[in-house]
């Protein structure tokens, strides 16, 4: 983040030296690189241990590794992008902490999450319409996109050793699918300032909303008697996040073919 600001400050004086800017609305292709962070407005509720196995972090930082716009008229264009997100939560320790909360009074708890115990992959892709207002230096691009948010749903196991007894119970949370990819609505606005003819710095502000049905099976097994009980956990989870990012816009092709 700091390096981007330094770059912007460095480019501003250069913009004075290269004051030959193209006319507004002359660009056809733009591409941008943006990084920022998600901030939750409506987060996933966390009601049971399975919620902590869902590898979605609404505070994740992100890097938009691909984002391009093609303007097919003076104001309208198509916009597509994909961002990888960097979840900061620790699935395994959060899962264990929740199990301690639920069972810790009566049991000693040991637990593990399948795989490496991390959040796994999280990302978001979008495709939509972009509208533009441009002056010589200022760029305002409202967008409306639909896309997807991708995250993993992990499985995990707990062993509950009863206090003052030998009894051991295994509790297994098994995800129905390994990952979820719900449709996501993404209205956004990109505000830019042209510092050179083909380069602008910009701020992206977006909302992202999705709802996802997540299914888990909770199996409880007494290791001595082998008595097994199974419970289906169907979790309808809605998320609404505000994302704020900083980046650079590159104009790669203009209407006159330059």
């Amino acid at each position, binding site marked *: 983040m700091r390096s981007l600001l330094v770059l912007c400050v460095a480019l501003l004086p250069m913009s004075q030296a290269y004051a030959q800017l193209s006319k507004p609305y002359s660009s056809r292709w733009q591409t941008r690189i943006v990084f920022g962070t998600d901030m939750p407005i409506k987060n996933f509720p966390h009601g049971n241990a399975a919620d902590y196995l869902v590898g979605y972090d609404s505070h994740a930082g992100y890097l938009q590794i691909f984002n391009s716009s093609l303007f097919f008229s003076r104001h309208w264009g198509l916009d597509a992008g994909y961002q990888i997100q960097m979840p900061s939560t620790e699935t395994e320790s959060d899962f264990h902490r929740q199990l301690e909360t639920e069972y810790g009074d009566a049991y000693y708890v040991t637990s593990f999450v399948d795989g490496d115990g991390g959040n796994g992959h999280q990302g978001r892709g979008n495709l939509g319409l972009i509208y533009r207002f441009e002056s010589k230096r200022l760029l305002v691009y409202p967008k409306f996109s639909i896309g997807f948010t991708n995250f993993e749903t992990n499985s995990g196991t707990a*062993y509950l050793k009863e206090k003052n007894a*030998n009894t051991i119970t295994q509790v297994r949370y098994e995800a129905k699918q390994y990952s979820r990819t719900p449709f996501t609505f993404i209205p956004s606005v990109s505000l830019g300032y042209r510092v050179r003819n083909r380069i602008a710095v910009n701020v992206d502000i977006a909302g992202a909303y999705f709802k996802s049905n997540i299914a888990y099976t909770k199996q409880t097994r007494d290791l001595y008697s082998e008595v097994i009980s199974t419970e289906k956990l169907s979790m309808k989870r809605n998320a609404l996040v505000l994302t704020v990012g900083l980046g650079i816009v590159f104009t790669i092709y203009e209407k006159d073919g330059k």
Partner: protein
Amino acid sequence: MARKIVLILLAPLIVEIAIGCCHCDDTPSVTSLYTYKSIQLENLDNRGAEPVVSESGPYLKEAYGLRVHLYRDLIAHSSGAPVSFFPSAYAFSCGCENNSSISARDSITYVHIITLRDFDASHQADAEISDLFRVQTESYGTQELTRVGEYATGPYLRYASADRFLRDMTFDILLFAPPAAGGVYKFKIQFTLSDGRVLEQETSEIQLM
């Protein structure tokens, strides 16, 4: 001429340096043979997260267990070090896998846990109660409870000392179906070996509450 003679004399050593460190034999380099010798029992209190040895009762009947020490003796040991011009101490690293082989002369064929006092309505004194106990096993985070006979006669004990000889094999057996009422109890464990010997040990009289 003298140089050539020296070179010819040194040739085997040079070849040995080149290939000696890379020679990994698949046949066991160390072979050990052991036999089961005796057993010892300790009372366990498993009220906490892990069972602990406690020789002073009374014991909570729902959290009672026994720690079994199965002592073994090494009766044969051979080290098949290969003949070499160069001592292996000069090798930087051979990278060979440990090919030691540890095997038992005799094996455990049966395990019986017997109550020496009336245990409950269906288990009078001298009745076998092995099925009321289990051994807790763990593999890659997955825990299971294994029947005592299955544990002692199966591969578990063999795997536990696969890479080195253990004179004292120790494992815990826990009581999972305690008697309805507290009182004084006493247990005996018998290990029957393939050569016909029976290793057995009794607990002291213990108070379960």
